[in-house]
């Protein structure tokens, strides 16, 4: 039983990471109706910036903060240079345009940081496990990820629901022209929203950096999962993204932990270890297909459109 709790905590941690990515994606998609495949590249850049600045300043926290600022600037630059011309175009153009950006960013990172990839060393005090419950050990750093992501989720909720910027963002989503006619520079607002999306992706990247190596193309696999999350959750709905992220995180991790044992009953050890993780990944896509068939607009279809 304790083992199940430990695995569910791992699932929650993956869910948190997915939420960070999905929140950025669904915010940008909900507001600007823009499919941004390059969101994974911003995740990668966040990790690279954090690794570089942490090495420079010698402190994890300073590295993280500088990384967030750098990712914000890159995000806004990308919006002004490339994304702004894509508004109003159909989604195929978005997919292709941002697909090109992925190739560009991967190669740019290789040019600047070289092919080998980097590591982001954790401060030594993080290198311990915490006894969350009697007999249940959980790495301290992963708790930090869960807690900090919850904080970000709260911050995001307050920003969108309680502040004027949040009101303008939601208003812009439903009637962009009218917000302009009331004296708000909607173009600038969109740049800020895109920058916010980039920061969320960068934050997810730098939080994940110490657990995975920072390498080119690290954003692409997780990007597909993030898209799955916003589709299940309902595009444009941050609440939906949170629920769906938890769902996907738990299914993937618990699936990866228990399916191989389950399959070992009727498959050889090796075959089970191969089929197990593959099947748990498939589970997520079956879930997606299943939900879309019955709820073509996701669980919490955004009310705005």
């Amino acid at each position: 039983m304790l083992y199940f709790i430990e695995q569910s905590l791992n699932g929650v941690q993956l869910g948190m990471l997915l939420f960070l990515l999905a929140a950025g994606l669904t915010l940008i998609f909900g507001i600007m109706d823009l499919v941004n495949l390059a969101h994974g590249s911003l995740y990668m850049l966040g990790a690279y910036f954090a690794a570089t600045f942490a090495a420079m300043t010698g402190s994890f926290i300073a590295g993280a903060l500088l990384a967030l600022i750098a990712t914000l600037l890159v995000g806004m630059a990308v919006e002004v240079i490339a994304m702004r011309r894509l508004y109003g175009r159909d989604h195929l153009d978005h997919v292709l345009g941002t697909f090109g950006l992925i190739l560009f960013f991967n190669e740019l990172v290789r040019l600047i940081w070289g092919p080998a990839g980097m590591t982001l060393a954790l401060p030594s005090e993080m290198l311990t496990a915490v006894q969350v419950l009697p007999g249940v050990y959980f790495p301290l750093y992963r708790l930090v990820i869960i807690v900090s992501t919850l904080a970000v989720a709260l911050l995001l909720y307050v920003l969108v629901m309680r502040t004027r910027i949040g009101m303008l963002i939601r208003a812009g989503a439903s009637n962009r022209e009218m917000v302009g006619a009331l004296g708000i520079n909607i173009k600038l607002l969109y740049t800020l929203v895109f920058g916010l999306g980039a920061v969320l992706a960068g934050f997810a990247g730098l939080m994940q950096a110490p657990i995975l190596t920072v390498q080119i193309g690290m954003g692409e696999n997780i990007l597909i999962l993030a898209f799955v999350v916003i589709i299940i959750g309902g595009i444009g709905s941050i609440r939906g993204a949170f629920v769906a992220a938890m769902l996907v995180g738990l299914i993937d991790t618990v699936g990866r932990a228990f399916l191989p044992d389950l399959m070992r009953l009727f498959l050889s050890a090796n075959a089970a270890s191969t089929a197990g993780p593959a099947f748990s990944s498939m589970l997520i896509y079956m879930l997606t297909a299943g939900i879309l068939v019955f709820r073509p607009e996701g669980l919490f279809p955004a009310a705005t459109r």
Partner: protein
Amino acid sequence: MRKALLATAALLIITASPAMPQQKTIKIGFISTFSGPVAAIGNDMRNSFELGLDHNGRKLGGLPVEVIYEDDLFKPEVGVQKTQKLIESDKVDFVVGYIWSNVLLASLKPLVDSQTFTIVTNAGASQLAGELCSPFVFSTSWNNDQTPQAVGLYMNQKGVKSAFLIGPNYAAGKDMLEGVAATFKGQIVGRELTRWPDQLDFSAELSKARAAKPEAIFAFYPGGAGIQFITQYVQSGLKGQIPLYTAFTIDELSLPRLKDLALGIPGAQEWVNDLPNEANKKFVADYKAKYKSSPSFYGAQTYDAVGLIDSALKAVNNDMSKKEDLRKALEKADFKSVRGSFKFGPNHIPIQNFYLQDVVKQGDDYVLKTVATIVENDQDKHFQNCHMK
């Protein structure tokens, strides 16, 4: 009208690249991984190969050498594409390299079909030692399960009663876990294969290992993945509770980044930097002088490939067309290996000793030391199913 002719003409120009000039050099195609978390391995192999050529006056069999390095990006489908390019487009005389068993297996057909002499300097796929052995393919490394078998023997010597095995889910990973299971006398309480190469988060597997309460854990994770595994092994607090045994995970490349995390984790290897023979002393000393870091077994195996090719070319005085004589010369392998004595089995896989290595802290840097010889003149157990006797 004008635009259409222009487009067709452009099409033909692109394809009109010049025909290959035939000048007398030895062309070597080198396939390894130079990107991602395992790039350090590829770079170590390239450095050692270049060092070997320097020691040989940039010549093989007396002829100038041209080396074409290709990055397999860690993926079998890219490896096979680059292999085909080296054979058909660059028309190389030898292909050297291959870190990963899955990339090697994918590239075997084009290599054997084109009868290109290949020196595998790391990948030890069991199929290469067994049914897929070929007169044109030689290995200067080992077969995947020889090293873990040595670790299994060592765990028996230490009186370990039960073990939990963890490894990456690709050809070498499965071979490694098979290897330990073959020689380990105790009970295997768990066996986990993780998704390779993208899964570097082992929290689920480590929790499962803790739950199984084994007396020891065996793990195999090469390159950057090894650093991740050991970091997370320490992070989860398992280090004090359950001892860890490894193969190909702690080496001169990962040690500088693992530092004291690696202390007290033994491993087995067919080459360690302090082997007492002349060739090895020169290799290690010159490598440190030139590259300011110490070589790993990946490098040592690649350095030997230079000596092997040079000795064979001299025996047939560079006549690449005499394939049969070149094969016999390569099989004789009369060159000074950094491992001391070096001889091939009938399936072109080396027969060699395996040593126990441990991490020792000298001053403020960490070094791998030979502690004991686990097994001598060990031969892989697949050579019977190879058609070459």
